[in-house]
């Protein structure tokens, strides 16, 4: 029995991470789920939020937006359109994006793609919270 699970995070632009970890927590479309070694085969859509993994007593955070997770043969593959490690996140940019989205929500006169604006806001907030969590855990 293996005691680690191989975590791979890939996006269309790059391979973000490939590592053997102790635990993976991911924001599933239907709520957060956790993956421990020897999990049964599992396939889920991902929402916007923080993915985290535990390795050697430390917790690392990764921001993901949209994608899929597949678990099989002790391997957890995350296919995300966007994935950023906590230390790669540009907080200023996220803050600006959040401000913009907030402003747009205020201006009701404009024809507004509400769902899109909300998604942008959620992404920005998730990015910021991801980095904060990473800082708190001392891995960022």
């Amino acid at each position, binding site marked *: 029995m293996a005691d680690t699970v191989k975590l791979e995070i890939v*996006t*269309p632009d790059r391979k973000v991470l490939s590592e053997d970890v102790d635990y993976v927590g991911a924001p599933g*479309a239907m709520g957060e789920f956790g993956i421990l070694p020897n999990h049964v085969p599992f396939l889920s*859509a991902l929402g916007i939020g923080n993915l985290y993994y535990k390795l050697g007593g430390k917790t690392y955070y990764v921001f993901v937006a949209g994608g899929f997770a597949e678990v*099989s043969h002790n391997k957890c593959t995350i296919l995300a359109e966007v994935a950023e490690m906590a230390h790669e996140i540009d907080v200023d940019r996220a803050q600006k994006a959040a401000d913009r989205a907030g402003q747009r929500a205020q201006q009701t006169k404009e024809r507004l793609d509400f769902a899109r604006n909300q998604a942008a806001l959620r992404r920005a907030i998730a990015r910021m919270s991801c980095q904060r969590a990473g800082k708190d855990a001392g891995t960022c």
Partner: protein
Amino acid sequence: MASLRDVQNQIVGVKKTKQITKAMNMVASAKLRGAQERIERFRPYAQKFYDMLGDLAAGADESVHPLLEVREDIRSVGILVATSDRGLCGAFNSNIINKALKLAAEKAAEGKAVKVYCIGKKGNDAFRKQEYDIKREERDAISSFDFTLAASVGDEIIRDYMAGELDEVHLVFGEFVSMAKQPAVSQQILPMAATEGEGGGDAGDYIYEPSVEGLLAELLPRFIKVQVYRGLLDTSCSEHAARMAAMDNATKACDEMTESLTLLFNKTRQAAITADLMDIVGGAEALKG
């Protein structure tokens, strides 16, 4: 016969051209390296995506999704053409354009309405001269693009397809096979051919969240975007490879021209010297007499 100065001017001109073609060759090779790296980085994602779709399709029981369904009555055909923005890359763009035009002509001959989505300036210029309905124009796109472009084009195609404005979609692009080979390829992307069936054997034990149908509804549209993105990546890579080859040939041609012009120059110069000598000798002879 050309005068000495004319020949010299020509030599200088050809040498200047050679410098340009050589520089373009080097630029293309640097860009090619970048484009190839992008393909390399994209490959794991695409591979994993195929695997996942295979696993999922193996567990799905004939669950029909609109994007998989082949329509009986095909009235309009969408053609997505990916070309480069700039020329000077040999027959690369015209190959793609010819392929797309031929496909469009075939479909039009069958009485189907043809709608064109152009990414890249060259393809756009060519299709503007035709009477086909151009639904989307992306000029100066190939030079710098990311997944967002593929996603937005993919979204538009899916939207039109779902709305019934398109019954079939083809993607025409320059496949990057090797440095020496970049054939124009046309590929049907909608409705999706039965790409599945290659899935893992143990698919039955999977837990699906939210459900197989829900996942398929998420995965299939994204698969279209992955294919579009791949087409764009390949086209941009092929473009640089084709330009490298074209510029290499041009540089060689310049060398040959310089050589033959230099020969001509020497001959002309020799003839002039001979004529001068004859004059002098003739003059000296005359004085003696």
